[in-house]
């Protein structure tokens, strides 16, 4: 089973119909385990119970960038390999990514209020994530602005690849500009800075959220494929109606000329 085999939408629909229930079950299970472990995790000696926001905030923030990465790969698929499902994948991912980015901003803001004393700070990472959110919205506006999906797909692909330049800026912003947001502490040289009692629930939550994204993304792709089928059926029907109404007056015209001839 390779990517080429999935180029057939019918085969893709059949495969995802089989895979989706398992994925959804795994997501629910991992989310339950992760939330349970997160609830049991000890309070931080400085931050108290608010540290538990981290278990929601960090997976959302990680996915906000991961989804754009997925969209960038799908855009390469659209522009380079002309894979027929690539633009479906890119289109379906955009609203999900926007939702994750919004949640990352929201939870970060709620966490920042007790810790930094402010809901919002024009800090390098916060600003670049906000730009990422605006670009998600712009991309969704672009998809909605054009009625021909394949034309919109190529334009959106170019914009996605240009926007991918923002990803390294977000990743390294906290290292380049020494601002309020803390530097990377989970994945860094010389091991994680987090204690095991925090790290394990966080990793479980990260995997659970990633599975959640994969589940939602596959479901959204199915919806998009079905939506396009409905659209093409409607267009076929519309053209049939237009064609038959074109015949109608023509036939009447012929009758009229026959009548004239008879008169």
């Amino acid at each position, binding site marked *: 089973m390779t990517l080429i085999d999935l180029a057939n939408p019918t085969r893709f629909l059949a495969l995802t119909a089989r895979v989706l229930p398992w994925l959804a079950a795994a997501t629910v299970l991992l989310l339950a385990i992760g939330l349970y472990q997160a609830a049991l995790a000890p309070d931080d000696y400085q931050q108290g119970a608010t540290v538990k926001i981290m278990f929601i905030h960090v997976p959302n923030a990680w996915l906000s960038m991961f989804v754009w990465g997925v969209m960038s790969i799908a855009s390469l698929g659209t522009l380079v390999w002309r894979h027929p499902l690539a633009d479906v994948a890119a289109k379906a991912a955009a609203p999900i990514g926007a939702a994750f980015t919004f949640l990352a901003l929201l939870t970060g803001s709620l966490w920042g209020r007790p810790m930094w004393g402010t809901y919002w700070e024009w800090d390098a990472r916060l600003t670049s994530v906000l*730009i990422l959110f605006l670009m998600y*919205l*712009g991309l969704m506006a*672009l998809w909605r602005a054009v009625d021909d999906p394949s034309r919109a797909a190529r*334009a959106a*692909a*170019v914009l996605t690849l*240009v926007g991918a330049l923002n990803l390294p800026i977000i990743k390294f912003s906290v290292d380049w500009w020494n601002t309020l947001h803390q530097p990377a502490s989970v994945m860094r040289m010389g091991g994680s800075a987090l204690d095991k009692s925090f790290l394990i629930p966080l990793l479980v939550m990260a995997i659970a959220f990633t599975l959640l994204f994969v589940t939602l993304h596959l479901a959204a792709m199915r919806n998009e494929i079905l939506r396009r089928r409905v659209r093409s059926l409607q267009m076929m029907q519309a053209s049939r109606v237009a064609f038959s109404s074109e015949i109608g007056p023509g036939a009447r015209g012929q009758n009229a000329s026959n009548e004239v001839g008879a008169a």
Partner: protein
Amino acid sequence: MTALAALIRRDVRIALRVGGGALIGVLFFLTVVVLMPFAVGPDLALLSRLGPAILWLGALLASLLTLDRLFMADHEDGSLDLITMSRTPLELACAAKALAHWLAAGLPLIVATPVLGLLLNLDMVATGAVALTLLAGTPALTFTGMIGAALAVTLHRGGLLMAVLVLPLSIPVLIFGVAASQAVIVGPMTFGAPFSILCALSLVSLVIGPFAAAASLRHGLD
């Protein structure tokens, strides 16, 4: 090379003639800057503190306003198809068109800056700093904006959609442009660091912009 020079000369000439609309940008820039004192009040100390930000915002909006002419007019009269099919690489042609657009629409904004600086109570050094940062930063605005213009022309949609797509890309330029000008006026940062980042942004967009615009024209036109 001669083809590109001819393209630049043609675009500049068209933009500066009647109906070209390049100088509308300067007029818009002037109007936005004049509007600001009405909004924040005629407090000269406040205006001189906000001055660089107002000038940068005005320049950003003015360059955005003129951007949709970059490909639209050529698309309407069919010369964009000729440019796409010519032997000159489309990336170079896009870069030449953007350069011509910057010469016709971006450079006048920088020339107008000293006059507008007077209105905002900026001293010589501050005005010079803003003009210098605009000189380094507006190419980035033009070259990233060109991507939006190319997308807009292939989608037959201009205006607001292009603004929504282009403005997020131009935020870093705005941040470092204003930071560099503020560094000269109030400190405490040095002028060098944000100014070098601004130049770097311009150089990066000089590379990315033509390729992205050419890709979207090549895939989008039919």
